[in-house]
């Protein structure tokens, strides 16, 4: 049900964009105004979100240690899983962000009927997640060619590697296939595993369909319908130079693609997608396990009411003396 509503919402968005593209007066709105606004919302929204997180202090040093602490010199410490130095933390975070280290640990717990609990490999979520995020990033980088007059060597290199499996023309990008496959897997997994389906909200399906919509519309334009790439670049360059024009030769599919992307940009800072920024700030991962070596200061630490030794001795002086314990006051 939640999935269906989310799908309908995305289809409705496509319809809106299609309508917008066919009304001449609205093409400027969908081609220029909305993309500008969406990008602004994205940037400002993410900055505000990160500043909000940053405004809350980290009162305690709470890394989740997933390896041996640094203690006695002859015991080998786990410099990445339980980092005691800043460098260790950087490596731990790099592995987390670039390779999804924690998700790589994933296991499948199988509870037999009163017998052995078994723990099996479960790398598909990790693989699909990684494939999805990396292909999204590479596709984004590839798109930079639309926004830059002279396409830099780095982007050309990325395109070259991505189209390594050349099948006819136009160049076939592996990432296009990977992103479709991985997003589809993530969706099937979400509805296919009963527990995951049970925890899923509309906010979990909607971005999946939206991203799938962006990918499908992009793939259609590139491989199946003829999109006037030159006029798309004119639009993109115009947006970049703040002298936007909307060439009439741009088809409605492109408008759908662009509108989906705009919606994603607007949706981003207000949704779970903020994990993109949040992962860098997670205190259980980005802190060194050195709280016994170096005092961590809590900015809002305040004095508390305690039961002092003197009060304790007052309560128990006779019993203490009776038991032969030394006391401060006779």
């Amino acid at each position, binding site marked *: 049900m939640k999935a269906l509503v989310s799908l309908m919402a995305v289809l409705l968005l496509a319809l809106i964009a299609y309508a917008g593209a066919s009304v001449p007066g609205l093409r400027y709105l969908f081609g220029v105004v909305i993309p500008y606004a969406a990008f602004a919302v994205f940037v400002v929204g993410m900055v505000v979100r990160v500043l909000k997180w940053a405004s809350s202090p980290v009162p305690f040093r709470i890394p989740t240690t997933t390896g041996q602490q640094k203690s006695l010199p002859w015991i080998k410490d786990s410099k990445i899983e339980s980092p005691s130095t800043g460098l260790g933390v950087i490596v731990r975070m790099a592995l*987390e962000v670039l390779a999804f280290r924690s998700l790589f640990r994933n296991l499948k717990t199988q509870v037999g009927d009163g017998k052995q609990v078994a723990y099996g490999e479960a790398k598909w979520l990790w693989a699909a997640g990684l494939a999805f995020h990396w292909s999204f990033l590479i596709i984004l980088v590839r798109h930079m060619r639309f926004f830059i007059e002279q396409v830099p060597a780095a982007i050309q290199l990325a395109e070259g590697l991505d189209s390594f499996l050349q099948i006819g023309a136009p160049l076939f990008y592996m990432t296009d296939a990977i992103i479709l496959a991985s997003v589809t897997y993530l969706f099937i997994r979400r509805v296919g595993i009963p527990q995951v389906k*049970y925890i899923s*909200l*509309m906010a979990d399906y909607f971005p999946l369909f939206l991203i799938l919509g962006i990918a499908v519309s992009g793939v259609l334009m590139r491989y199946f319908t003829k999109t006037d790439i030159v006029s798309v670049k004119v639009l993109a360059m115009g947006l970049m130079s703040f002298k936007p024009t909307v060439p009439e030769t741009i088809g409605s599919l492109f408008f759908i693609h662009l509108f989906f992307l705009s919606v994603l940009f607007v949706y981003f800072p207000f949704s779970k997608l903020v994990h993109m920024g949040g992962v860098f700030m997670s205190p259980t991962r980005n802190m060194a396990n050195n709280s016994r070596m170096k005092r961590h200061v*809590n900015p809002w*630490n305040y004095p508390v009411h305690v*039961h002092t030794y003197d009060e304790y001795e007052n309560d*128990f002086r006779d019993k*203490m003396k009776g038991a032969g314990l030394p006391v401060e006051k006779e």
Partner: protein
Amino acid sequence: MAKLPKPAELSKIDFTLPKTDWMDTPVVFKEGMYCHGSKPKSLEIVEFPNPREWRPADADWKLPENWKEIIIEGIADRIKKYRSFRLFMDICVRCGACADKCHFFIGTGDPKNMPVLRAELIRSVYRKEFTTAGKILGKMAGGRELTLDVLKEWWYYFYQCTECRRCSVFCPYGIDQAEITIIGRELLNLLGLNIEWIAGPVSNCYMKGNHLGLEPHTIIGNLEYMLDDIETVTGKRIKPTFNRKGAEILFVTPSGDLFADPGTYTAMGYLMLFEELGLDYTWSTYASEGGNFGFFTSNEMGKRLNSKIYAEAKRLGVKWILGGECGHMWRVLSQYMDTWNGPADFLEVPKSPITGTVFENAKSMKMVHVAEFTADLIKNNKLKLDPKRNDHLKVTWHDSCNVARGMGMLEEPRYVLRNVVNNFVEMPEDTIREKTFCCGSGTGLNASENMELRMKGGYPRANAVKFVAEHHGVNMLANVCAIDRASLKALMEYWVPSVGVCGLHELVANALIMTGEKERTTDLRGEPLPSAEAKEEKA
């Protein structure tokens, strides 16, 4: 009290999901799965709000008129104070990687015991009250109104989490359900909604220095019994000191070790080890608790109880502090104590008087774990050990959650263990070290009225023990945690009756050859040693 079902029945775990959406499925309080509510006296002693007689099963919880306001303000306050909380409210993508990592979910099959859903219980209210999308779109954006039913659901499920952090190991963003439960319980405590098994020990600890409420003369009396037993086993009379000014080291251990077996055998182990070393140390009756049930109540209460350790070290003028075997005690000491009540600049960087080793890893907080201390002794050949005395035992090692995932102490106890026993077998790798399973009774849930919950929560741990018991003949489950020693005993009796439970230093003391001791014929438990048995047979 609810009747505890038989193991065969309890191990049939039902993973069927309710037909209704989780937000539309009201909480049902099942007897055996929750603890008694806090008593008014326990709250009054520590000046906590809303002390009154109440029972969780009652419809009326006798809450203040403005309870909802208190909770919402409590959340607002805490998102400003804790980046962890604010972030963990925002970034979860509900991938479900944490779901089958929780021992309570594995043991109960209840979807609200999936860490992700336990967090959503509070996240849904956060969305409704604190996010733009939730305010406008409500349920469509995953938001929901805070009602009395929601509050009861929080209470039920935040006291079905032991803050073990296993979920946070697997979370791609490091979201730690422990952190959310800690704050969830803090919020509940604003309304006087604690459990007595926590509130009672907290008030005891506040007034008397330890969770069990042992008064100074009782502590000494309890230790005297142990000293008698040590004399019987070794022929040596030990005379420890209490509240002694000018000692080099203050020793602090959880009070559970002074109270009931098998913890008492661990305490006997400390006494024997320190005696053999001639250590200049003292016990304290004021700081007679290493554990901290305040930590399961609120940050402030944790700090109030913890303050006694540094205060007593200062009063007695010791150089540094040595800490006994305990789980959450060491998470609190490692990650909170110095921040709360430091800097401990009146102490010196801990240095073993026996080996000269300086514990640089504790140079700021000034407290050393006894397993680190003993590992260093063994490495420097300072102990005469006869591991054969433990030959009647086949030992496996339980990593306590907090020590593993909130400190990273994995190798030190294993090193000690390998030197004091000849038969050591690890449990399956996905159930040890950073992936270790909770005993099911941590964070103050080791009461008796919730035994069904405890046996269910401890099921994955027990199952792994059962595996090594059946395949390798393991008969002893060793650990460094006082709650483990108390709770795993019940867990083993229920699931794997052939396996006993002991602390690390019980095994150390069994193997320790003390100067001038008589020939030992029994271990600390009074059970005949294998070598003595062999001799008898020969004769």
